[in-house]
Structures are given as structure tokens and as C-alpha cells.
């Protein structure tokens, strides 16, 4: 009824359609303006400011506008800095390998072995929920498990497997890696699960019909098609680990260092220009890594 009634309105509105065309050209700009403004003010401007400040002079009380390169020569010329960068990259590599392995098999199990969509969603949510809770709480929660008198140690001692508690479980590099894997694996599971779900199942059947074994299907069909998901997961995990300071600080008990932790310490000493120079080096390193990964995958296509 209403359709018939409103028909004439369309005809009447037709002339204005041409006007809407020019009017419509402005719309996307207005719609994207808030995003552009927020990112401009809170992402671009701060980064530009960091680059500027990294050339400034400073003392214990304030910073002074200048054009010095000493902040950079301090960063790049120090043996401690190089060691810290290498340590951070080492964490990134280990955590990346572990999360990729765990993430792939978890996603593969969910995508190819769970038969109903409802069950898939339930199990996926079971994996997701902890990642929506506080990172620090999830870090702290390892203390009663790994500590000197923690669950693992007391069990091992009780069973007589070790004579005295193992010291390196907590406040060690092992603890840092374990906590990072615990914190960041979902960032690998989700994108891989997403790409696996989009693989056309007839491809798998075709490979089987052509006589491929289970492993051949996995190696020659599924893994190549899952690469974009792995790449996106890699971007997440690598950038998160490269930026991490809290996990390193809490889980290593101050015995290990990362670039971000070094920056945080410089910031607490009000050495902002030094921290800024570090920030620029770290940013360039991270962006280079991401650019390298983006050569493998076009994110816009994967969404």
C-alpha cells in the first residue's frame, strides 16, 4: 500500500537525484573526517613531535629546542642499547615461532575438525574471552603457578622429581616468553582461523581425489592458502612483543630488558629527548618489519 502511495514521490524526487550526486561527493569526506582528525591529533602529531624532540637538548629539569644528533649517537653508540635491541628481537622471534605453531593448530582444529558452526563459535569464544580481560592480571596470575613455592614447584618437589624448587620458572626469560605466548596467541589464532574458514572445501576434496595424503593436503593446499592469515597474525604478535615493557618488567623481575622498558626508564628520569631518539629507532625498525610482511599480503583484500 505504502509502496504505491510513495511511488509518485520518487518521480518527484528524481530531479533532486542529480543534485545529490554533487552533494554525495562531499559525504565521504565528512564521514571520514572524525577518524582523520583523531588519528591526526593523537597519532601523527605526537609522532612528528617525537621526531622533533629527539634532536633537542635536555638536562635534569627541562628540554631545550636544538638540532643535536647526540641523542642518536648515544642510542646507537652504546653497547647496552644494542644488547637490549637484540634481546627484544630475540623475544619477538621466539614468541612469534611459538604463537604461530600454537595458533595454527588451534585454528586448524576449530576450522577443519569441529563440525557444527555453533560449536565452532562456542570454542572460538572460549579462546577469546581471556584476551578481553586485563593483561596485567593475566600476567600476575602466573606468580602462584610458577613461583618458588608455586603450584608447579611444590608438585615437583612433592613427587620427588626435583630435590629443591626450580629457580628459573619465575622471574626469568622463560617466564617472560611464557607470559607473552599466553597474552598474544589469540592475535595469531583469529586471523588464521579467519583465512582457514574461507578456504573452499572442494579444494581439499579435489586434492584427496587426486590421491594426496593428509599431510600433502595440509602442506600443499591448506598452509599456502593460510599464509595471509599467518602474515596478519605475525604483524600483531611482532609489533606487540617489540613494544612490550610490562611483561618483561613483571615476569623477569627486572633481570631482563627490552627497548620499550629502556624507554620507560628514560622517561621516568625525564630524559625525554633520549627516549624520543630511542622511539624513532624502534619505530623505524617496527615499520620496516611490518613493511616486509606487507609485501607478502594485501590486508585490504583479506578483510
Amino acid at each position, binding site marked *: 500500500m505504502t*509502496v504505491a502511495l*510513495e511511488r509518485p514521490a*520518487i518521480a518527484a524526487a528524481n530531479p533532486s537525484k542529480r543534485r*545529490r550526486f554533487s552533494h554525495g561527493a562531499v559525504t*565521504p*569526506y565528512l*564521514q*571520514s573526517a572524525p*577518524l*582523520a582528525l*583523531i*588519528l591526526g*591529533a*593523537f*597519532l601523527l*602529531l*605526537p*609522532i612528528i613531535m*617525537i621526531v622533533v624532540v629527539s634532536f633537542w637538548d635536555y638536562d635534569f629539569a627541562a628540554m631545550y629546542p636544538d638540532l643535536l644528533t647526540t641523542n642518536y649517537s648515544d642510542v646507537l653508540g652504546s653497547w647496552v642499547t644494542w644488547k637490549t635491541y637484540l634481546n627484544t628481537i630475540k623475544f619477538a622471534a621466539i614468541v612469534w615461532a611459538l604463537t604461530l605453531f600454537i595458533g595454527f*593448530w*588451534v585454528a*586448524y*582444529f576449530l576450522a577443519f*575438525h569441529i563440525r557444527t558452526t555453533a560449536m565452532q563459535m562456542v*570454542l572460538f569464544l572460549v*579462546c577469546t574471552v*581471556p584476551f*578481553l*580481560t*586485563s*593483561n596485567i*592480571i*593475566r600476567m*600476575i596470575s602466573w*606468580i*602462584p*603457578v610458577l*613461583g618458588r613455592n608455586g*603450584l608447579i614447584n611444590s608438585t615437583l618437589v612433592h613427587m620427588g622429581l626435583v630435590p629443591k624448587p626450580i629457580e628459573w620458572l619465575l622471574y626469568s626469560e622463560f617466564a617472560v616468553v611464557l607470559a607473552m605466548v*599466553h597474552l598474544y*596467541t589469540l592475535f595469531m589464532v583469529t586471523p588464521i582461523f579467519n583465512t582457514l574458514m574461507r578456504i573452499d572445501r572442494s579444494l581439499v576434496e579435489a586434492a584427496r581425489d587426486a590421491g594426496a595424503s*593428509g599431510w600433502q593436503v595440509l602442506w600443499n593446499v591448506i598452509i599456502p592458502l593460510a599464509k595471509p592469515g599467518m602474515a596478519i597474525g605475525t604483524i600483531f604478535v611482532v*609489533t606487540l612483543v*617489540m*613494544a612490550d615493557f*610490562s611483561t618483561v618488567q*613483571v615476569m623477569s623481575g627486572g633481570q631482563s630488558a627490552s627497548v*620499550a622498558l629502556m*624507554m620507560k626508564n628514560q*622517561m621516568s628520569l625525564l630524559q625525554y629527548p633520549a*627516549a624520543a631518539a630511542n*622511539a624513532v629507532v*624502534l*619505530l623505524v625498525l*617496527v*615499520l620496516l618489519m*611490518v613493511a616486509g610482511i606487507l609485501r607478502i599480503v594485501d*590486508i*585490504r583484500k583479506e*578483510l
Partner: protein
Amino acid sequence: MSHEKRTFEFYVLAAFFTLFVLFLYGPLSAILILSFQGETGGLTFPLNGVSLHWFANLFERQAVGDFGGSFKRSLVLGLMVMIVTVVVSLLAGLAFRQKFRGATALFYLAVASLVVPSIIISLGIGVVFQQVGFRPAWYTSAFGAHLTWTLPFGVLIMFAVFNRFSPAYEEAARDLGANSWQTFAHVVLPMIAPSLIGVGLFGFTLSYDEFARTLMTSGTFNTLPLEIYGMTTNVTTPVLYALGTVTTVFSFLVILATLGAILYVGRRRARV
């Protein structure tokens, strides 16, 4: 494929998956149990009796800093971030459906926002505020810092949603005489409502738990994650676990409520 017999591979992977879930939830349940530690108990097992002592301790203001105040600030900040994230991501998602100058640059700026280390954003915003002469506060500088983390997620989700959104529905609505606002409000919005609720959940929980970005930008008053972070270095009683339990239970409630809302919206849409 769905009626094949379970293979050996299935059982191996099912065991692996179970271990993974235990790995995720095991430590969390440890602090959940230990937060009920008796008055004389310590940070590790065994339990020296069962009590609510540490929860009571939590609400005594002077005992563990300003728990109530920081919780309130985190809650309000999370809600602010949630609303802005939903609205701005939706608008940007709509914008990206059309071609416009700078679309690619803006898209990659959003991606950059995701990969730039959070401490760099924290430092940058802190220095900008200092140079401009504004005082950093949780509702200004930290608010902006959180948005740089939640907006890319929101924008990418909306981008994915609209990639799969058939324009046929809008064309049909327009053919039936709806103007562009009616098309949006009665056709597009109800269809993407579950995704918007999801974006809202992301916005709220990411902000509620964020602290690397808040570190240099929160000003005088701490948000809850900063308060907890401070406690990790100087609190050596199970009150830390009590706080962990309370905030985790709160997060779970938020997630459950959101899932309920998504299911409810989905049901209603199916009925209509």
C-alpha cells in the same frame, strides 16, 4: 566430510586444544581461588583457611591506594571510548564504501595506529601536551591515546562488514521510496547492529584494560590498570588477587552482557 569417522589427527588436535584452553584458564583460576585466602595466608598455595578478608581489605581506601576512584575513572573512560569508537568507526566504514581522495592514506594511517608501539604514542602525546601547555588528564590525553588503539580495530571490523554487505538491500529500499536517511536507519543499521555491538565491546574492553598508552597520559589520577600495575611492585598480600578477581569478574560480566545483546538483536531481526 561431516560423516567421516573421527581420525587419529582429530584426537591429537583435540588434546592439543584442551591443553591450550587449560593454559589460558589455569593461571586465572589460580588467582581466583587464592583471592579467598585466609587472613594469615600468603601469595601462594596452600590456602590457610577461606575468607573474604582480602575483598574487604580492597574496599578500605587507605589499604591499597584508591581502588574505588580508579575503577570509576576506568569505567567512565571505557564508556567514552566505546561510544566514540562505535560512531567514528561506523562513519569511516560508510566513507570507505565510496572512493575519495586520501582513502588509501587514511586506511594505512589506521593500520599504522595498530602497529606503532603503544609506549611511543604514550610518550608522544605526553610531550605534545607538555609543549602546548595542557595538563594531561585521563579524560583528555589518555582518552585520545586509547582511541588510537580502539579505532583501528573498529575501522577494520567495519571495513570487513561493508566488504560483505550487498548494496542490493539499499537499492531495494531506495526503489521502495526510502530517502537516504530512512535507508540507513531502517535497512543498513539493523543489519550491521550485531557488528556495531561487537565494535563497542572491543572499544570498552580494550580501553578498560589498556595501560601502556595511559602511562604518560593519565595525569594526576590513575586508571585501574595503572593502579594494579603499581601494586605489582609494592603489594605482597593476596589483596592483589582479590582486585584481579573483581576486575576479571567485571570483564566477564561485560562480555556476557554483550553476547546476550548480540543474540537478542539477532533473534529480533530473525523474527521481523
